[in-house]
Each structure stands twice: as C-alpha cells, then as structure tokens.
C-alpha cells in the first residue's frame, strides 16, 4: 500500500510541476512588458528596471522558471496589474468563501444523492428507479447558469432569499441565508452522478456473494442494505466524489459569478476578462493545486477504507 501511495504522490508531484509550468507560461504571454505593467502608468524607468531585476526578467528562461518556483513556494504570486493588491492575499481571502460554498453544496446533495441511488437500486426497473434516473440525467444536462438564473428570478419574486454576495461566515445568522441559493444551484451538479453511481454499485453489491450470505443468515433488509451492501458500494462513491470535485469546481466558477459570491472562481474569471495576468495565474494555480490535493486525499482515504487494498 505504501508503494502504491508513494507512486500516486510522485505522479501528483509531476502534475503539480506541470501546473506550475502553465502558470509560468501564463505570465510569459502577457502582451505588454510585465515589469512596466506592474509598475503602472506612473512607473519610472528605474522602478521598471528594479521590478525587472526582482522578477529575474533579465535572466534566461530556465532560470526565470526556477525563480518563479521559488517565489510561488514562498507564497509570492505577484501583484495584480489592476489594483496592485497582493495576488496571494486576495486568493487566500477568496478561498474561504469558495470552500464554504462547495461544502454547503455537498452537505445536502451527497446524502440526497445517496438516498435516491439506494431507492433506485432497491426498486431497479420500477417507477421510482425511472424517476430517479430521469432526474439524474436532467441534472447533468442542464446548464448550471440556468438553474442559477431561475433561482435568482424565483428569489427576487418571492423575496425569500438574498441573491447577491456573501454576508459573513455561513454558520452565522446573517451569512446563512446568502449561501442557500448558490449552494442549491451548485449541489444539483453532484446529485445526478452520485445517485447514478450509488445505484450502479449498490445493485452490483446486492447481488454479491457476501450479501447473499448475510441474507441467508437471516439479516433483516435494513441490515443487508446498509450494513453489508452499501459498505462495499461506498468506496467507488468516495472515488467518484473525488473526481466530481472537478465538475463542482466548474460549477462553482459559474455559480460564484451569478450570485456575486466572492470566491476564487469569480476572481479568476474577472482577472481573465480584465487582462490581469498575475491574478489569473494565481487563481488558476490555486484551483489546480486544490484539486490535486483533494484527489491525493481521496486516494489516501480510499486506501485506508478498503481492507482489500491494504495487503498490496
């Protein structure tokens, strides 16, 4: 197991290096002289020269990449061209809200998806199964922004929930109402895939030998499903959730934009549309790194959770 994990970690390290290379390239393609851009319109020749030396722009590309790596490791992602703010600080400030939004989305959609999947697996081929599968295929086919806009319109008509921005941490009375709509829109992305995966793996598990044995030994239906079948089915579901973090991230970028949620996704989109290369680079770097780390964590978790993998 240690060997497999080490192998995975090594691959993740290489991926991280690739991501950093992309981030570096993003700064290379900046159309204007990056040093002049950072110094701004009022920057003097001397200032530009100083920035150029600080960024190592007078050195060969390989050295520049090495310098870039060492700066990133130290948390120096550069400064925004637009407002000279520290990219690192802006991202750290936006990371919390994005994490909040994703957690709020998962907290309702994972259990619900699991339940829907269980129901569908138990009534496979029946009416309920068909309804669940229809909802699931619609869930993965609907553009996230449509769900978001429908919710905005609904909330504006009924004045039930706030539709813009964030008002403090989501566990506070002020902050909570603000997360309801974005979390609803975002969670919908997970609902279909989780329900489908649960249905598939649980139906397989229900036919497995150990479940038949449990039945034969007189275990009740609840115990058979929850204690025996679902336990083996849970592992692929954990893996799926790890993979779905990617589509969740995509959804978060759109949801944050619709609901003006001050997260990393919105930061990235705004940076790209305004040509703020350092900010875009930083935000994308952050999202990619977060994704890699989540998947490493999922790998470790599933290795730990599955006794069959332990011996290898």
């Amino acid at each position, binding site marked *: 197991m240690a060997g497999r994990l080490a192998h995975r970690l090594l691959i993740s390290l290489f991926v991280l290096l690739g991501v950093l290379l*992309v981030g570096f390239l993003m700064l290379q393609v900046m159309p204007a002289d990056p040093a002049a851009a950072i110094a701004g319109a009022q920057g003097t020749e001397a200032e530009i020269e100083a920035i150029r030396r600080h960024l190592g722009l007078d050195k060969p590309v390989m050295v520049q990449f090495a310098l870039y790596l060492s700066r990133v490791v130290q948390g120096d992602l550069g400064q925004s061209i637009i407002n000279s703010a520290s990219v690192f600080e802006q991202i750290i400030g936006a990371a919390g809200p994005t994490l909040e939004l994703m957690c709020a989305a998962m907290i309702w959609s994972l259990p619900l998806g699991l339940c829907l999947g269980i129901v569908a697996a138990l009534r496979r081929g029946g009416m309920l199964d068909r309804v669940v599968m229809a909802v699931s295929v619609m869930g993965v*086919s609907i*553009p996230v*922004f*449509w769900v978001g806009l429908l919710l905005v319109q609904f909330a*504006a008509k009924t004045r039930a929930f706030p539709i813009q921005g964030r008002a403090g941490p989501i566990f506070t009375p002020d902050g909570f109402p603000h997360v309801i709509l974005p979390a609803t829109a975002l969670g919908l992305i997970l609902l279909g895939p989780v329900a489908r995966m649960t249905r598939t793996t649980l139906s397989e598990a229900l036919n497995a030998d150990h479940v038949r044995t449990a039945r034969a030994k007189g275990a009740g239906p609840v115990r058979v499903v929850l204690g025996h079948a679902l336990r083996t089915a849970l592992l692929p579901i954990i893996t799926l959730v790890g*993979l779905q973090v*990617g589509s969740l991230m995509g959804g978060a*970028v759109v949801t944050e934009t619709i609901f003006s949620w001050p997260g990393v996704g919105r930061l990235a989109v705004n940076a790209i549309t305004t040509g703020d290369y350092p900010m875009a680079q930083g935000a994308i770097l952050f999202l990619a790194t977060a*994704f890699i780390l989540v998947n490493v964590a999922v790998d470790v978790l599933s290795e730990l959770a599955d006794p069959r993998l332990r011996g290898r």
Partner: protein
Amino acid sequence: MMSDMSMTEVAAGSAGRTWRRMRANPTMLIAVTVLLAVLLFALIGPMISPYDPYETALRMRLKPPSAAHWLGTDSQGRDLATRLMYGARTTLMLGLAGVTFAALVGGTIGLLAAFYSRLDNPLMRLVDVMLSFPSILFGLSLAAMMGPGLDSLILAIGLSIMPGIARISRGAALSVMAQDYIDGGRVIGLPDRTLMSRYLLANAYAPILTYTTLAFGDAVLLAAALGFLGLGLQPPTAELGSIAAEGRSFLFIAPHVSFAASALIFLIVLPVNMLGDALRDAADRRAS
C-alpha cells in the same frame, strides 16, 4: 458523467445489437426526435428567418413575444428566435469542432499506445492525469493564455474530452491487436503506417465514434459555460451561452432571453445524454 467506467463497456459493445435494443425503447425515440428538431432549428432556421441576427433596432428593445417576433426581441432589439437559431448553430459547431479535435488527438494517442507498447505507459499516464483534470481549468487557463475566443475555446473543449477518447481507443485497439490478421499483416511485411490505418483503425473505430458522439453533450455544456462567463466567443457573435449572459442583465424585465437560450442548450445536451444512458443500459442488460 462520461467518466463512468461502464462507459468503456458501452462504447466497446457491438453497435448493431445495441441499436436494435434501443429502437424498442420509447425514450430513445423521444431523444432522437428532440435532437433532430434542434438540428433543423439550427440549420434550416437561419435560412428561412426574415431577420438579421446582428442588425440592432433600439426602438424594438426587449419586446415580449408577438406575431412578428415569436420569442420577442433582445436588449438590442434583435429578433430573439433568429439570434437563437444562429446561436444554436454556433454552439453546435463549437461542440462539433471540439469533439472532432478530441477524437483526432485522442484516437491517435490511443492507437499509438496500443500499437507501440513502449509508448503505452508514458502516454497513458499523461492521459490519466488529464482525465481527472477539471475541464473548467482547461477553459480558464487557455482563455488566460491565448485570450478568450474561438481557438482557446475549441482547444479547451478538445483537451477536456480527449483523454476519455484516448482510453477508449486504446482499449478498442488493444483487442484488435490480439487478432491474427495483425500478425498476418506484419508477416507479409506491411509498414506500421498501413497496419495502423488499414488494419487497426479500420477495425477499432466504432467504439471511438460512439464515445465521441456521446461526449458531444459535455462539449456543448463546456462551450456554453465558458460563453456565459465571457470567456468564449465574444459579442456580438450569436452563441447560446453568451446570449444567456446578455439576458442576465435584463433578467427581471425580460427573463425569456436568458431562459430561451438556456433551454435550448438543455435541449441539445439532454437527448445526447439520454442516448448515452440508453446505450449504457442496453450494454448492462447484455452483460447480465
């Protein structure tokens, strides 16, 4: 949803038998009908519409549906139905270009990996890494590097779908590689290029094609999302995602602009995903 592993089995299944089972399925018929209707709307619509999708008429802004404008007008006074026809055409083209690019690159990678076992490991490791990577990150990075537009959009769609196609085509090609006629071709001294195109590709293309078709829904969704974020094709080009974004500013006065564009995207993606589900179910039943 295309990452589900059972997709591999579906795509590897025999197309003819699956098709016969599918025909007996009413959901299938609905899906195909809806898809055909959208295709007609996008391809024939622009030819018969009396309106220009780009000519603005500010006195006609945000009119509700009427006899002259079936779906009303948008914020620039353009006929919304016409905008949607051109938009659907653009979106379909984007999806098509994206999956075609993905199929060419992914198919080549898969075939090479199966044909040259030396290349298998490095190529597939690369593919594995890309397979899990969020498609939105491809979209964001390419838009940041190349600037938002057609090139970055198609590249982003292609790169996000390519890994799945590479896996499928490697699997299909590996099973062909085990056939005697490949050895036969080698024995009579055919060059690798001929073996790959006339023997390998000719016998392994069916699952690649199936998977590529089913990835079309994901391609359209990504194109629409990037268009909505302003990272796709730039206005005034009619594209469904950006039409939905334009309508967002007038959501409370004229919700039909955003909603019609979004609904049209849904009507393109849903039937494709329904077809995918039906294929998967048919393959599941065959397996059991």
